[in-house]
């Protein structure tokens, strides 16, 4: 592999990794509070469609990002009510949220299918190695991605709020006995997840595709959930996870464009094969890192 290919792949992976990182960070916050939300994909889609709609209506892409964040939060509120207040099964509620998101986003996005939205202002850095070139487009959400990971890490690991949140995720009864407000903390965590998923969708629409198509996220919400496990619920490791997956996708397309003599169908499997391959590596250590009360409805009386 030549330097040119590596640089081009790294540059290209930024675009895919940014939205994955936001979605993964959101899911980490929720799971640390003991709530697994399988509806990330649905919230991302609603975020993307809302970003598209709001940007077209207002003409300002930052309004689009704001709308996406609010829409993601609104979606997660439905989920939060079901799992936090009613003690509904988290897996079933999350999947319902996914399908709700598919429907809502199709409805919101309908007038914008195939239409071009004016994306986030960006600076394009370009370098070339003879015939091969590498380009990375830097916009506000790319710039904020790493600080966002740092912020989540700081909030979870260095603040009282984070300690309480993690306590709820490990042992809600003990946390409750110690005076934590489980309900409020889980609501906050789920809403943060909705916000970040919405922003992830906004980045796809406003910085990668510049248009809306139904089901556009194409499974990236589920990849984000897998990346949470890969990252062992650690926001810093999520950066690496997002870059690895984004890089695998970019690499297979770069290799195709380069004319590598391998079946395109096999190439399209690569990123998913890679995800499957790294998950066992986290293996038992991954199990240990998981919040102990993840996925369990609260059984106590508040």
């Amino acid at each position, binding site marked *: 592999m030549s330097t040119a290919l590596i640089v*081009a792949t790294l*540059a*290209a992976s930024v*675009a*895919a990794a940014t939205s994955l990182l936001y979605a993964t960070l959101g899911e980490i916050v929720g799971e640390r509070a003991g709530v697994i939300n399988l509806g990330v994909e649905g919230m991302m889609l609603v975020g993307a469609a809302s970003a598209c709609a709001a940007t077209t209506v207002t003409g300002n892409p930052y309004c689009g990002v704001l709308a996406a964040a609010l829409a993601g939060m609104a979606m997660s509120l439905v989920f939060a009510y079901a799992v936090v207040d009613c003690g509904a099964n988290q897996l079933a509620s999350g999947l319902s949220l996914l399908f709700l998101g598919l429907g809502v986003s*199709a409805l919101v996005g*309908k*007038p*914008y*299918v*195939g*239409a*071009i939205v004016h994306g986030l202002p960006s600076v*394009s850095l370009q370098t070339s190695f003879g*015939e*091969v*070139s*590498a*380009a990375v*487009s830097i916009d506000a959400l790319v710039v904020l991605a790493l600080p966002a990971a740092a912020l989540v890490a700081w909030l979870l690991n260095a603040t009282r709020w984070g300690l309480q949140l993690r306590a709820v995720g490990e042992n809600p009864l003990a946390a409750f006995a110690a005076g934590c407000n489980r309900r409020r903390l889980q609501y906050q965590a789920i809403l943060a997840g909705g916000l970040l998923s919405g922003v992830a969708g906004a980045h*796809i629409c406003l910085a*990668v*595709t*510049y*248009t809306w*198509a*139904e*089901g*556009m*996220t*194409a499974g*990236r919400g589920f990849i984000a959930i897998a990346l949470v496990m890969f990252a062992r619920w650690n926001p810093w490791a999520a950066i690496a996870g997002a870059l690895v997956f984004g890089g695998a*996708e*970019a690499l297979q*397309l*770069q290799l*195709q*464009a*380069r*004319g590598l*003599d*391998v*079946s*395109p*169908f096999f*190439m*399209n499997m690569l990123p998913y094969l890679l995800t499957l391959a790294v998950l066992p590596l986290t293996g038992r250590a991954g199990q240990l890192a998981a919040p102990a009360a993840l996925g369990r409805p609260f059984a106590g009386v508040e």
Partner: protein
Amino acid sequence: MNAITRTLLCALAAIALAAGPARAQDKPPLIVGVIYVGSVNDYGYNRAMKDGVDDMAKAIPGLKLIEAENVPETAESERVMSAMIAQGAKLIIATSFGHQEFANRLARSHRDITFIHAGGWMIEPNFGTFFGATQTAWYAMGVAAGLMSKAGKAGFVVGVPIGFVIGNVNAFQIGAASVNPKFETRVVVTGGWSDKVKEAAAANALIDQGADLLTMHVDSPATVIQIAENRGVYSIGFQSIEARKIAPKGWITGLGFNWGPYMIETAKQVMAGTFKGAMVRQGLAEKMMVVAPFGDAVPPAVRTAVTAAADKVAAGFTPFTGPLKDNTGAYQLTKGEKLDGADMGKFNWYVAGVVGRVR
């Protein structure tokens, strides 16, 4: 306003009132049911179908449309079409490939209803199939690419590499090589008709690897054209010719579908009772395929050459004339051998000069 005008206006109003209800009771000359697989606002395939349907409605006064969007390619489509028949539809237009067997089943149980379906192969006396002869038309796009690309290298973003898509790529490469023998078409497959994130990454990858012109065969050309424009390379569109608005700098030209004339003709045949199910494949000659207006970047000499190539195709030229090698170096067509009609949709090999694998 004088008295005479006022009287006249009153009289006109009275006539309008009297005529109004009577006209509403008139039966429409034809009720047409149309099903689309997606939204008609996609600036792509479904939009082109909708434009054709609207042309038909405009051309035949009183024609009534019953339309349904987002009709899946399942038995659900059969129920939607049945409901249209129950509302009096005498002509059903099923616009997506996967609607075929359901429309065909209904056609066999409703011999008095006419069906036309896009892109299939089934034929009944009351069931016809139609599609654009896209492959030959892509030859003209290739000529445009061959003359415009300085690197002599185009990137082709392909959704799913099925036979007729491969045929489009092949004709494009043959056209380009006819004006630049060293021309190369690099293919990247995304694996879906509408995975926009991958289309974006594929477009970027092709530009990274040296392509200075992009084209595509996916549902909506918007993303690929926008990326080409952002990175300052040329683009050639497909499906909807409206996409040129996205790329004021890099747009060269494009291919679009024009279904109107065929649909008008079919509606007239149905009303006259002369419809016969057949396989209809029309191209540039019959104006079912149209070449989009040229972009500002295209010099007059290139415009002339591309128009001439399109005219050559319209006059009956087929790019798939032997001797023709595939991209592994093996002869697929011997001298004088020709592919035409349905064979052009059954490719499982790329011509020499295309960089990519079929499977």
